[in-house]
Each structure stands twice: as structure tokens, then as C-alpha cells.
């Protein structure tokens, strides 16, 4: 029996940018709700004026988190955008805390 093929796990930021349709597909949310998240600033297109939106690769993770909390907490898109903002802040603070702990030992 031939050995199982090895799949390469890729850094999210290995993708220079992601398209709107990739965001829609990764999140599973309706486009109308994703557009609301863009309006509230939770998802930020690289060039909001461009005819087709592209996003930083990290937006894939944001869109998937949005979908989870939208569904699991039964929140509307505005509440989702507020929670995303807090989660991002917590993530940043945790990274700072980790760095401080690493530095101080």
C-alpha cells in the first residue's frame, strides 16, 4: 500500500491577499451580513473603492470567527462586529503579556 500523501499546512499570511468570494466561502455567512461587517469596520478591504474587494489574508480568520460567534451566540452583525473588536484587543493584549512573560522569565 502506498504511504498516505503529506499535505502542506500553510501560514494564513502565505496568501498575499484574499478575494471577496474566498471570504464569503470561508465564513459561510450570507454576503449581505458580510457587507454589514465591512460597513462596521470589522472587515476592512484593502481598497474599499475598488470594484472588487480584496483583503489581507488574516481577514479569512476574522470572517470565520465572525461566522462562529454569529451562529453560536445568535448575535446580529453589529453585535458581532463589537465582539470581534474586543476579541482582537484581547488577542493583542495576550500577545503582549506572552512577550512580557517571556522577557521576564
Amino acid at each position: 500500500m502506498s504511504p498516505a500523501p503529506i499535505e502542506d499546512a500553510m501560514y494564513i499570511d502565505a496568501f498575499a491577499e484574499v478575494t471577496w468570494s474566498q471570504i464569503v466561502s470561508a465564513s459561510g455567512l450570507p454576503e449581505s451580513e458580510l457587507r454589514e461587517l465591512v460597513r462596521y469596520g470589522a472587515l476592512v478591504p484593502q481598497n474599499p473603492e475598488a470594484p472588487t474587494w480584496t483583503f489581507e489574508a488574516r481577514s479569512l480568520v476574522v470572517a470565520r470567527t465572525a461566522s462562529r460567534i454569529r451562529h453560536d451566540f445568535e448575535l446580529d452583525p453589529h453585535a458581532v462586529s463589537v465582539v470581534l473588536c474586543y476579541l482582537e484587543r484581547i488577542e493583542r493584549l495576550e500577545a503582549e503579556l506572552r512577550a512580557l512573560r517571556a522577557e521576564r522569565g
Partner: protein
Amino acid sequence: MKYKDYYEILGVKRDAGADDIKTAYRKLARKYHPDVSKEKDAEAKFKEMAEAYETLKDPEKRAAYDQLGSHTPGQEFRPPPDWNQQFAQGQGGFEDIDLESLFAGLGRRQGRAGARAADYPMAGSDYEAVVRLSFTQAFHGTEIDLELSTLEWSPDGGARRVPHRVKTRIPRGVTNGEKLRVPGKGGKGVNGGPDGDLYLDIEVADHPVYRMAGKDVYIDLPLTPWEAILGTSVKLPTPAGAVTLKVPPGTRVGQELRLSGRGMTRGSGAAGHLYAVVRIEVPTVVDDREKALYKELSETSNFNPRAHFEQEAA
């Protein structure tokens, strides 16, 4: 199929109203949702309660669940003889299926309002798995075998749980909290729909010597007082192999000696740095000769680390 008591999982009575069920779920979700919780086993607990809520919040699914009767959690059981016809529209047998798959299939059938799945190409679901690595695996990259148990949909809308194994190469330089993506390794698409992706949440275990801060790595460098004063060369372990580090004279406690590019390295991007953080250790036991030398030093030296105290007190 093993029985799960969805009412017990949510902590409500079997005759609880829809509002009580919703409140119980929301209260538990607030506590255990993996995006907001730091509780131990939050993810597993949340998964269980989400599964319970998905069924109990839907009147039709709840009626179907209630018809299964009440059993001891974990007990093997079979649905009553007419259950299949009444709720699952004659879906196949109950082999290779668990309660979650059974009710997920029920939901899809209801959602499609009788239309045949064969009419729709459907993208496979994305999956997410937590991957726990040692510091060394994260630094150098590694290969892992993931055992996933995933829901797959048949063209008639039924669901079944399918175990599958994904051998994955983790690139070097992954950091704590990072997410990786394995394209096309999520759920299978149906009727020509694309396969989903697999997302990996990386957790890196603490290392006894190295501490990770993003791309940078920290290590304590214990020195004797005289090494710190006079300077020295030490053999320093680094994740990529030992190096000789020159410690300059007059090195202070807490000072960070940077070894450029010896932190986490990923792809072609800039590498992180390794910081050796100086700790000055003092001997707790000294012999008479050492004591005499320290005494002589104390009488000779003009060094006063508390000079600023005296200025304050003046």
C-alpha cells in the same frame, strides 16, 4: 448508537419551554465558547452543548428527539421501529451513525424542503483542529498525523460520521496561537462542490529553557557577579545549535543580549531574534577564603547602588 441526554447537558427539565432552553444555552455558551473562554476543556464542553441546543431549539427535531425516549447517557440504544419513517423519511439504518449525525441529517432534509440534494453542488465544510506541538517541533517544523472524525453528507441528505486521517507537514517557525490552513482537506464537496479547508490552531507547549514571544525566543543567562563585572564568553544553547556568546564587561542584571536572526524562522521572511536575559546568581555558601575576598572588595569598592536613596533622603 450511544444516548446523550440533551436536556441534562443544558441543565433543563424535559418539559422546559423554548425560552428556558435558549437562556440555559446562552448562559453556558457565555462560559464555555472557545472564542471567549479560558475554562479547561471549554471546546469539548461547548461542542456538546451546541449539539444539544441545535436539536432542542428546533420544535421538529426536539419532537423527534423526545420520541427516542429517555435512556442513561452513554447507553447503547436504537430508535423505536417507526421512528425512521416518521422523522427521517426512511433514511438508511443506524449503523455508523451517532446522535449528532442523525439530527444534522434531519436538519438538512427539513431545510431543503423536499428538494433533492442532487440538484445542488455544495461546498464541503471547513474543519478546525487544535494541534499541540513541542517547542522543538514548532521551531524546526514537523509532520503530524491528524485523526479527524467528520460529518459527511450523502446525496440523499443523510449524514454519517467518517473517520479520516490527514498527514500534514507543519512548516518551521509556527508560533503560539497561530492558525494554519490545509487547502482542500476539510469536508468533501457534494455534487461537484469544492472540498472544504482544514484549519489548524497551533498550541506550543512551554519549554524548560526557551520562551517564545511571537517570532522572538528568550533564554535566561545566569552569570556569576564576577563574570558580569569582568565579562566572559559562555557556551549558550540555542534552538538551532549551541553558540559562543561574548558577555561584555559591566553587564547588568536584566540586560538582554541579542543574537540576531536566531529566533523563529519561517519561509523566506525575516527571522526572529534570540535574547539571552542576564540573571546574576550569587553563591549562598562561601568558604573562609571567599568571605575574606568579598570583605576586602567591600572595603575597597566605592560602588554604591543606593546613591539615589541618599539624595531622596537629604
